[in-house]
């Protein structure tokens, strides 16, 4: 039996046709204007880059119309679930699915024997689809069941008998690296070790008037996307295996499914469904191969939706990390040396650990000019759920360590936290620790933007009477962040078509995962093409319709895909002008497409009229853009130009701490960003506000609690996230005026970075308020209370 899938027209087959969308866009605009005041009219104007345009998916989402993978129903559809390891580390001696296969409603059981020999993995294929003879963490998938109902599948999963021989579980990187430790991976327990060096570290430390040495530790955290991983697979009558899944990178799954299943690429299609939050957690493997294999085995559509417990116990996490670090500075606050050691718990498989590790080493010391620098990183395997990509790829933790130390250095040297950063911050022409010379650096502009606010609030807080045990403080932290993959080429492409009625469709492989990137790309493409943004429909993240343009990750969509859209838009404009010129037998240089109008000498016609004119040729008018900047870094020495550009920011936060309880609240945030040109301020502000909320969670409450290799808080009751009352209402977003000569219309992108400074800035603010220096995340109230008690105990 095969299945038909009738695909509704329009974006992500959830948003309806352009005509349907028009109504929602108007409605949403009305609501947004109610809050923000009148928005510029973008009806027929040519360029909209820089204008706040309401995104077109918001109302569909809030009204429950968006079709997430878990909502997609198909005729004859089966429901699948995994059978997961009950041991953190064990040999599998036996696996018996016979009882489960006889259970009511069960249509198929899948084991390693069905999954072939191919391994899966994002960077290195090191992970079995289903564990064969060994499990490396509690929660690893061993088998999968497909049944008529989710309850039947879950019940049958309980009947799968697995015989284990438990092995010693390695629970910390220190244990993993100890002599004689049981080897988790065939290649040993060191997942990756990296080193970078510039200048002479010992000379730099000797030159310093003050050297600070500190240890920092950060807990493991979970992405906490609202939508759990989910996907559905089915086989078309023409033999195409389609997998629809919530992912940040459909084209990766397309290639991997074809490889693992041994199918030609054109017999596999991967479509990204509406993504309910990613944050790096939807770049990895979850349901894809299992639903594909089960759909082939049962010849029925098969859907799998993770439970929240599975999200916590079996999806990738942010790495727990320890930092040991020395920072040296002269009396006037110039940094002379940074000597950093990073130790990361990578979990049981590689996932994105290599990327995270590389990014941490490349970014060590950033965004400051530190002439002598040495950084050593080790990421070890442990018997925990694998750690992978998460918003900022580790930089939120290295920045926590560095910015905390810089704040302490400023205080010890009698400098303001802004001044010490200004004296060391990157400027145009500075060279990074990998040897890259920087351009269009707006870091100091972000410091300048915040300094008057800092001075004013500092004076006001000092003058305000202290109430009970409440204390207020200010903290500052900066960041610099490379845009795109680290040191490897990651081109993006875009394609633009038009029909005879004037509807323009832009195709791009990088999916919109809720950031509003489809709207930003439409703005860039339409401006470059010379057409109204209202005409542009974006199709993204569909392996059949779009080219592989890389994932939506690494803050790369605005810059990489935006540049591709820009080039494609210009190419489209040129081709369209040529087609009109051909029809009118006019010289091509006399025809001009601009602001949705075609002018030929002094005659003007609307774009729509022109489309009718060239209707018979319209399918052939395709604009194409590829953006592939020349980036390269040596994977061993890390020297080179790992990123085409860097985005910078400084955050100033005000906190209130209750010293009697140790409880910490974030009162206000001023977030100054150099993200180049801002394509859509509504989208950028939204990203910053979300980043602040996420940073707050990581700063004060989020942690995955692990005991003996098991996650013991796999639900939102005990894994705390900030609620609406915890996130400050006062988040002021400041975009400094800066133009990146290599970005689309000068843009760099915001994305991940808005999260990075928050924990460090809050820690600095705690030090400002209470004269204690937190050195771990999360800064829970009990931890802060102990620091305060120690402070008071130390007083004479």
């Amino acid at each position, binding site marked *: 039996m095969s299945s038909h899938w009738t695909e509704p027209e329009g974006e992500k087959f959830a948003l309806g046709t352009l005509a349907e969308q028009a109504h929602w866009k108007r409605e949403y605009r009305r609501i947004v204007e109610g809050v923000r005041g009148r928005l510029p009219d973008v009806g027929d104007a040519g360029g909209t880059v820089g204008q706040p345009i309401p995104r077109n998916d918001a109302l569909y989402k809030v009204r429950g119309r968006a079709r997430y993978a878990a909502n997609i129903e198909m005729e004859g559809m089966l429901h699948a679930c995994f059978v997961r390891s009950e041991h953190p580390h064990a040999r599998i001696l036996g696996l018996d699915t016979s009882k489960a296969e006889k259970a009511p409603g069960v249509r198929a059981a899948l084991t390693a024997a069905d999954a072939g020999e191919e391994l899966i993995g994002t960077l290195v294929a090191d992970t079995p689809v289903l564990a064969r003879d060994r499990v490396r963490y509690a929660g690893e998938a061993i088998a999968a069941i497909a049944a008529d109902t989710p309850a039947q599948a879950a019940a049958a999963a309980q009947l799968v008998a697995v015989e284990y021989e438990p092995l010693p579980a390695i629970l910390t990187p220190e244990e993993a690296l100890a002599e004689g430790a049981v080897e988790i991976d065939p290649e040993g327990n060191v997942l990756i070790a990296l080193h970078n060096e510039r200048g002479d570290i010992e000379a730099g430390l000797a030159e310093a008037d003050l050297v600070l040495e500190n240890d920092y530790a950060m807990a493991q955290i979970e992405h906490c996307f609202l939508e759990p991983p989910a996907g559905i697979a089915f086989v078309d009558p023409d033999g195409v295996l389609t997998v629809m899944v919530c992912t940040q990178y459909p084209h990766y799954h397309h290639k991997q499914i074809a490889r693992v299943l041994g199918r030609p690429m054109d017999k596999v299609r991967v479509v990204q469904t509406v993504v309910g939050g990613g944050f790096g957690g939807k770049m990895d493997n979850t349901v894809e191969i299992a639903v594909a294999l089960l759909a082939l085995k049962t010849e029925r559509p098969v859907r799998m939706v993770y439970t929240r417990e599975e999200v916590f116990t079996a999806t990738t996490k942010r790495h727990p990390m320890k930092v040991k670090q020395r920072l040296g500075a002269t009396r006037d606050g110039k940094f002379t040396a940074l000597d950093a050691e990073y130790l990361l718990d990578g979990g049981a498989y590689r996932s994105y650990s290599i990327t995270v590790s590389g990014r941490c080493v490349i970014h060590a010391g950033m965004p400051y000019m530190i002439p002598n620098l040495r950084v050593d990183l080790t990421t070890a395997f442990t018997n925990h759920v694998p750690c992978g990509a998460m918003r900022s790829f580790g930089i939120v933790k290295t920045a926590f360590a560095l910015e905390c130390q810089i704040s302490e250095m400023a205080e010890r040297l009698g400098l303001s936290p802004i001044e010490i950063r200004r004296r060391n911050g990157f400027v145009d022409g500075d060279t990074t620790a990998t040897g890259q010379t920087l351009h269009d650096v707006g870091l100091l502009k972000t410091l300048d933007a915040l300094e008057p606010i800092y001075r004013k609030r500092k004076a006001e807080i000092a003058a305000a009477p202290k109430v009970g045990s409440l204390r207020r403080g200010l903290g500052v932290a900066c960041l610099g962040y490379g845009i795109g993959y680290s040191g490897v080429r990651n081109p993006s492409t875009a394609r633009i078509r038009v029909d005879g009625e004037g509807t323009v469709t832009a195709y791009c492989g990088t999916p919109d995962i809720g950031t509003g990137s489809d709207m930003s790309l439409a703005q860039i493409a339409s401006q470059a093409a010379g057409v109204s943004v209202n005409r542009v429909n974006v199709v993204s993240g569909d392996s059949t319709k779009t080219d592989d343009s890389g994932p939506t990750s690494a803050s790369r969509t605005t810059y990489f895909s935006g540049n591709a859209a820009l080039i494609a838009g210009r190419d489209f404009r040129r081709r369209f002008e040529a087609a009109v010129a051909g029809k009118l037998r006019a010289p091509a240089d006399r025809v001009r497409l601009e602001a949705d109008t075609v002018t030929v000498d002094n005659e003007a016609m609307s774009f729509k009229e022109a489309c009718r004119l060239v209707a018979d040729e319209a399918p052939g008018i395709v604009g194409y853009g590829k953006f592939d900047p020349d980036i390269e870094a040596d994977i061993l020495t890390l020297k080179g130009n790992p990123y085409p550009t860097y985005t910078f920011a400084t955050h100033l936060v005000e906190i209130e701490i209750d010293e009697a*309880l140790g*409880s910490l*609240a974030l009162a206000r945030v001023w977030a100054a960003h150099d993200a180049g040109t801002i394509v859509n301020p509504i989208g950028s502000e939204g990203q910053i506000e979300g980043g602040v909320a996420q940073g707050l969670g990581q700063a004060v409450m989020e942690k995955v609690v692990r005991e003996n290799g098991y996650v*013991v808080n796999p639900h939102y009751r005990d894994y*705390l996230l*900030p609620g609406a009352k*915890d996130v400050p209402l006062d988040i002021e977003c400041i975009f400094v005026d800066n133009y990146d000569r290599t970005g689309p219309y000068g843009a760099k992108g915001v994305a991940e970075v808005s999260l990075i400074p928050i924990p460090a800035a809050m820690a600095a603010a705690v030090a400002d308020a209470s004269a204690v220096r937190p050195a771990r995340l999360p800064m829970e109230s*009990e931890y802060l*209370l102990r620091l305060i008690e120690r402070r008071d105990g130390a007083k004479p």
Partner: protein
Amino acid sequence: MSGCRFTVARTAAEAVAGLAEADGEAHIIAGGVALVLLMNEGLLQPSWLIDVSRAAELQGIDVADDGAIRIGAAVTHREVAASARLASVCPMLAEMAAEIACGRVMNRGTVGGSICLADPQGDPPAALLALDATFRLAGPEGGRDVAARDFFRDLYVTALTENELLQHVRIAPPPTAHRGTAFGKYAARQAMDYASTVSAAVSLARDPADGSMSDIGLGLGGCGTIPVWPQKTEAALRGRRPDTEAFAAMRAALAEETAPIGDMLYSADYKRHVAAVILERTIKAAYRRAGGGGPDP
């Protein structure tokens, strides 16, 4: 949930009859806040649910002229928070109810549900201990009264027998004119938490002549396996003004009669410390309301 019977009781008697018929297999449901959570997690698979949310005797908030209060077991936290009459007689109850978890829980959750769940970290039990409330239980033999202070027996165990349900809560009129009540709590977040980490409820009277405290009623959440009525702490404060010595005595007594359970978020030591801080602040707030003045904590 397949095969679960669901009946709606119009009166307490119907619910009692249903419980008897089910012979231990039925669960009472009102707002369903905790029960449905347990069912969703697969920890409870009831074969029969008896809905008492519309049962006549379990409705309404009545405040008599003398200040006596009756609250039906099916009254929601939202109703408690919104009752102006209740707020004027006993501000602590409205204050407590207004800060429960979040809007959805306030709208669905009931006073009776919170009491019968007997979560040691629940807010309403602590408040009702402090107010020396009486619980009216309906059962096959008619009804009986049990003091709140005698109701909570062990972790999630109460004085309710298998065929009984809670009908309403009664709170006697305040003993003197100079009474103040207050509720305080600590949780990691400003809202949304499943239950407070630590909560403190205080009812006291202030002697206008010498400023001393009398008729002290205290209740604590998150300080043991049940909602705690700290009698020794009450005794340590009785007859004193709320000064440094009184609070030192309070701390000593509190340490003696509370045994918070450490969990994955907080140690028992920290909870004990927080209980003392919150209780002291709440006593000061109640004292102020009793006309005692003093700065905000």
